[in-house]
């Protein structure tokens, strides 16, 4: 005989899960109790939202499915923001929640919450398990759904009695068969032919690469395609890292907070090739203006993204890696030199020297410097707020990765995501950059870092205000700083030290650089607090 809890753990083993991020509670105890007997590592986060963020960082760093676990009611509810964050950025997660006994479901018992109902609009799929015998099929399906097609989080809600009930034997299915779920991965040859014809006719083409390029592992193909054709590349925030920042064909991140050269390029193009990008409002504020003068080829694994925000001339549904390979076979095109020169001159024209303040760290030049100091394969995790924009525009990525909460813009993402990334890739430099606002949302995770002895570096841009909104108030609200002044900012150095984590405070770029070198040499976690002037602009 075998219990539901044991089956759940065995399913995770079958899926080669080696780390789960979680927080216990009464109705998920049977699962954790069995997990304890295995060599799957359970990382105790300090708040359930961070379990999902850590699983997200882990999933992104290893291109695998991240697993997070919480108990019923408040545990599951706390996790929602993390799940929704993963959903918006198409990160594959399997989220397991304990649930109250199935015979009292719906009676509002202690710590009962309808979590499958609450999560409906931001999970790719969800299950409320009613029968222990169904667990193997459900886990198999969940991992399959989370990781294939357009990736995303899948929730499995397991009542405690389903975990304790026993069945005869455990058989893990080797195949899934969901009749309504068969994502198309190969691009339609006719559409690819049309796309290539359209490229051949264009004079001013540009590739707009999004997160889909990275999640499908198409980065090398994209670079090959761009190099072979000379088509310049702009990226969305989720697409940062598709090309090294210093690649001559890379223009920069586009959007309301992006590089002007990238936006001007898109607005002057006669062909925009969208690759795994969903044309979010922050990336392209007025898609209607773009399509007035440009044809659009949209390649995406999710047919619903094509035509959702931007009118498309040639839609191609498929996995980015396959489609680009198909296109690479037959493409014969050279981008006109004038167009490339034009873009080069825009790049030079719109380059901006940041304004610095005496006694403060200038974050843009510091981030640019930081990219030279970290390892080429470093994982950079930016939080949300001004720090995100400083990083997105000034971090010169090489062969590493750039993680951030792009779609949902969830403050407090960077520290727990860095925890997950470091556990996934222990040999890489993992640096989280956050503001003093977002850092305070993730503070409890310092304990996780200390306990797990994780060599995570945290850079806190301390400007004592909620910078992004503060800036907005300057522009649109007559500089009335309604509830954006943090005032009592704690001494982060002492705070970090109280967890046994080394820390330092920098008030100039020279100091910041000195401490960064020291921090990167050490094999221990480190918190570097940079004193930043509250009037430093985002762009």
């Amino acid at each position, binding site marked *: 005989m075998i219990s539901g809890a044991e089956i759940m753990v065995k399913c995770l083993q079958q899926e080669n899960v080696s780390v789960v991020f979680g927080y216990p509670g009464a109705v998920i105890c049977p699962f954790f109790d069995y997990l304890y007997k295995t060599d799957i590592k359970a990382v105790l986060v300090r708040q359930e939202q961070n379990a999902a963020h850590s699983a997200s960082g882990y999933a992104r760093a290893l291109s695998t499915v991240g697993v997070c676990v919480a108990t019923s009611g408040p545990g599951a509810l706390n996790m929602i923001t993390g799940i929704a964050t993963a959903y918006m950025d198409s990160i594959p997660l399997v989220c397991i929640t304990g649930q109250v006994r199935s015979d009292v479901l719906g009676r509002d018992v202690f710590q009962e919450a309808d979590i*499958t109902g609450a999560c*409906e*609009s931001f999970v790719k799929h*969800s299950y409320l398990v009613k029968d222990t015998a169904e667990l193997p099929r459900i886990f198999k399906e969940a991992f399959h*759904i989370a990781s294939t097609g357009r990736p995303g989080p899948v929730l499995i809600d397991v009542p405690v009695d389903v975990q304790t009930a026993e069945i005869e034997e455990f058989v893990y299915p080797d195949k899934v068969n*969901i*009749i*309504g779920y068969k994502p198309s991965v190969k691009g339609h040859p006719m559409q690819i032919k049309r796309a290539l014809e359209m490229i051949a006719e264009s004079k001013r083409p540009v590739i707009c690469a999004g997160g889909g390029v990275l999640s499908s592992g198409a980065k090398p193909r994209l670079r090959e395609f761009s190099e072979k054709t000379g088509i310049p590349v702009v990226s969305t925030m989720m697409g940062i890292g598709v090309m090294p920042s210093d690649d001559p064909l890379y223009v920069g991140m586009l959007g309301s907070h992006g590089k002007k050269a990238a936006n001007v390029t898109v607005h002057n193009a006669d062909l925009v090739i969208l690759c795994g990008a969903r044309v979010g409002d922050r990336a392209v504020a007025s898609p209607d203006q773009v399509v007035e003068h440009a044809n659009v080829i949209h390649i995406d694994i999710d047919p*619903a993204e094509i035509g959702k925000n931007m009118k498309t001339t040639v839609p191609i549904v498929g996995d980015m890696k396959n489609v680009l390979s198909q296109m690479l076979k037959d493409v014969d095109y050279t981008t006109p030199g004038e167009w490339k020169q034009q873009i080069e001159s825009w790049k030079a024209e719109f380059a901006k020297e940041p304004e610095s303040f005496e006694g403060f760290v200038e974050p843009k030049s510091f981030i640019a410097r930081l990219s030279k100091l970290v390892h080429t394969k470093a994982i950079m995790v930016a939080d949300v707020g001004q720090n995100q924009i400083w990083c997105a525009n000034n971090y010169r990525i090489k062969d590493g990765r750039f993680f951030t909460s792009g779609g949902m813009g969830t403050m407090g993402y960077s520290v727990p995501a860095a925890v997950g990334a470091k556990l996934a890739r222990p040999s890489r430099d993992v640096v989280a950059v956050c503001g003093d606002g977002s850092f305070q949302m993730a503070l409890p995770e310092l304990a996780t870092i200390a306990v797990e002895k994780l060599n995570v570096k945290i850079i806190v841009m301390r400007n004592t205000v909620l910078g992004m909104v503060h800036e907005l108030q300057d522009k649109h609200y007559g500089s009335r700083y309604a509830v954006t002044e943090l005032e009592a900012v704690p001494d982060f150095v002492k705070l970090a030290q109280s967890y046994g984590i080394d820390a330092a405070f920098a008030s100039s770029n020279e100091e910041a650089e000195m401490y960064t070198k020291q921090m990167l040499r050490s094999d221990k976690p480190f918190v570097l607090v940079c004193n930043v002037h509250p009037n430093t602009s985002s762009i």
Partner: protein
Amino acid sequence: MKYTLSVLVENHPGVLSKVSGLFSRRAFNIDSLAVGITEDPGISRMTIVADGDEYVIEQLEKQLNKVIPVIKVRTYTEGDYISRELSLIKVNSPTNKRLDIMKIAELMEARIVDVSVNTMTLQFADTVERFETLCDLLKPYGIREIVRTGTVAIEKDSVVSRK
């Protein structure tokens, strides 16, 4: 414009809420939604009548396709399908009006399924347009209650068929 969509779904608990949740989340307007088991007991069919332009209907189709237990989505084109709705209409029928209402029922091919001293209940299975005609005819007598199932639709095989 009104569109009729036929959606085949796996017959599992929770599927209806997954589909209906989509409408509010994506801000789609629907007129009716009818669900029932098909010839295959593992599969249900939802017939959805939605209001919107081409863009909205395309999005609706695509978003429905993303719901895992959704097997197939089809938008019917005008003239290619037969649609019917079942309705029950309770109407005031004092003794002196009873014959009038029976005449209307006969004319419209509605069945009288319940009669009391003061009311009559008509069962009517036809198109939405004919339902509206029947209502117009019954209104002068005072309609007490209307219960409608929402439209169900099936594709036409023959070209000559009563719409």
